[in-house]
């Protein structure tokens, strides 16, 4: 069983508390630029899209890293990076499909999400479900059951006559 971060644009308010919470947890400063996750704000259209590492099963960053600084952590399933081993070649940034790997010019190394060892800080500041943390295996089951309960409710409403125009 592995847990992952679920990014849900429909539930994101675009407040970016996750960004500064992340940078604070990891770097003790408030800086979206040092955050492991980012909210893309398309203000003109009123849309906010949370993004971050998807901890891919076939992670291209792991494959491309010439010094094996990126690996999968068995306990959490997270794709993690050893900044001290990083040579700053940035190839992982190039191959990442999500723009989830960032370069820190001060340390001259890349950095990315490590799921906070299975207790992600960003999730603690998101209460609308824009970013949540859950078992991937349970994701379809949860959705199936929510759908089932919608049907249940609709049937009850049909019986009591509510919901009719």
């Amino acid at each position: 069983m592995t847990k992952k971060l679920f990014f849900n644009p429909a539930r994101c308010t675009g407040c970016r508390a996750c960004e500064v919470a992340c940078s604070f947890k990891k770097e003790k400063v408030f800086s979206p630029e040092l955050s492991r996750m980012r909210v893309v704000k398309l203000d003109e259209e009123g849309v906010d899209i949370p993004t971050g590492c998807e901890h891919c099963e076939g992670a291209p960053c792991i494959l491309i890293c010439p010094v094996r600084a990126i690996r999968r952590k068995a306990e959490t399933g997270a794709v993690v990076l050893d900044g001290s081993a990083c040579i700053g070649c940035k190839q992982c940034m190039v191959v990442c499909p999500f723009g989830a790997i960032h370069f820190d010019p001060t340390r001259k190394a890349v950095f990315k999400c490590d799921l906070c060892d299975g207790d992600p800080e960003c999730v603690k500041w998101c209460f609308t479900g824009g970013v949540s943390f859950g078992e991937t295996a349970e994701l379809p089951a949860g959705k199936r059951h929510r759908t089932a309960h919608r049907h249940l409710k609709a049937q009850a409403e049909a019986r009591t006559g509510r919901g009719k125009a």
Partner: protein
Amino acid sequence: MTFKYGGYAGQLLFADLSKGTVKRIPLEKEWCTHYLGGRGRDAKLLFEKQDPSVGPLDPEAHICISPGPLTGLLGPTTGRVNVAGRSPLTTIYGNSNAGTNWGPELKFAGYDGVVITGRSSTPVYLHIHDSDVKLLDAGKLWGEGVFETTARILEEHGPETKVAAVGPAAEHGVLFGSVIFDFWDAAARTGLGTVLASKNLKAVSVRGTGAIRVADPEGYYETARDGWQAILDDPGFKTGEHSALGTSICVNWGNAQGWLPTRNFKESFFEGADKISGEEFRDLYSTKEAPIPAGRACFSCPNRCKRFGRIEEGKYAGTKGNIEFEGVSAFGSKCGVDDLAAVFHAYMLANDYGMDCISCGNTIAFYMELAEKGLLETDGLDLRFGNADAMVEMVHRIANREGRLGELGAQGSERAARAIGKGSEAYLNTVKGLETIACDPRASKAFGFGYAVASRGSDHLRAHPVFEMLKMPEGVGEELFGSKESVDLRKYGGKVRLLAWHENIAAVTDSIGSCRFMHASYYAEYPVPELVNKYAKRKKDPSNIHSIKYHKWFEAATGIPMTYEKLLEAGDRVINIERALNVQWGLKRSQDTLPPRFLKEPIPKGPAKGELFDPVKLEEMLREYYTLRGWDQESGHPLEEHLKKLDMADVAACLGKRGLLGSGKGTSGGA
């Protein structure tokens, strides 16, 4: 660079557009310890740097755009930015505040504010990318709307740039031009966008990639989390209504309480309220899915008040944007218009032209009443209350100063009334030249009194005393403000103390960079929740409901030792420096009043039928208020003794030199 206090970046950008130079000036200690930042520091800076004889649109005029020390930190509500200068509309203190992502971005770029003076010979915009700061040619942007301008700057400097822009209305010299941040977030009251445009400055764009440190990281995290949780646990927040409807929740709420301004404040109950309500907007135009229909938030804020919507079909297809209650009331109930699409459209036009929706909508409503009374030549328009087409047309005409009504309306309703004459002043709703917001002062006495004394003219956000609307237990009002009546919307008792306390807290939140919707809409303010628990007949869950401790929050961020009492004193200091600015800009005591309508005409119908703001009470309240503030009873000028008590001897000395200190004769000053 490292500044001795946390939270602050430690420096301001100072741009002189006449010389084409940009300097960095370090923050002074007193600006932080005494005036906190944002609104407080801006006022002090204007007092120090700007000669009182300089007119609002003179090149030498200064304008400040400033986040606070908490802006950009992990929230709650840390996206605020303050804009301040001398208002071209009122010629006194001009100030407006917006919830943004721009303010945090400026902090991340390494600045606590931008101060702009001078006038460029050609249109320019200021672009800030961390330490790289440039004045760039805006020749091709000049004349473009706010939305187009913003989109083009994003194209030029990258999609993560944040943009503050002014629109054509400000360029044309409409006296209530706004500054619009990132398409939708407006700092519009008092017309400071017009000041920027008068300097030939089209926009200030910023990209910041740096970091902000705090003095006590662990303590900060704990207080921020506690504040965030206070909002999540607040009973008002938990209903989800404010989050679901945004500030437009006030349409139906205000109507039910009888304070929704209708047809230029003739009435305070709008029969068409349902049709322009937050609920209607959610159902017709919201673009996001449940459970957060169109809920967008400012930086690091759980409240998500911003309603984003889009009109897909019909006459106004393509209209999109954020709405707030004030604009909906200004173009809706105040104009008697119950066509939400037209209201939404007019509102977004005002944003794109870059002008204050309140002053604009109120001016149109004022015209409509004059037309009804036969006091106005209407330039061929059918300016009847409720005529949506005429209302929308007037927005264009005002923004473009087209025709006589456009030309006059562009100067705000008070100047328009002076030009029109014929007794039209009787139908104004302005205080100190600023149009009144969407709450009838006859129906809500703390709000009403607040309009009379607010430093920027008729406005609720200097105090935002919604305490009186929340049906608090009487004991809370008695313990905090000395009168059980203070919890009753319609009564006068305790309202001066209630207002002054809220004004102090509001000055603090505006200065530190947090939002008004934390201390008032939800009564998460020290010590209100605790008192509610003490006095409520049925106890709320005491483990949950609690206040936000602003003083601890500020202290943890900055490292400046702070107590609740000292914080309130800082608020008093901010109100006093703004008063000092106002008296040197010619404010008279007689301007601390309400428009005649509210003092003479009882509300004719609805839930607040028969209500009036008693002029005798108003005078009594002013005397009590001046005593609390330490102002002279006769002139309304600050008294030396009180300024000194607030550690403002420098301000007292300066006012003394200019002959503007209160004489204190026969008064009880400085409480």
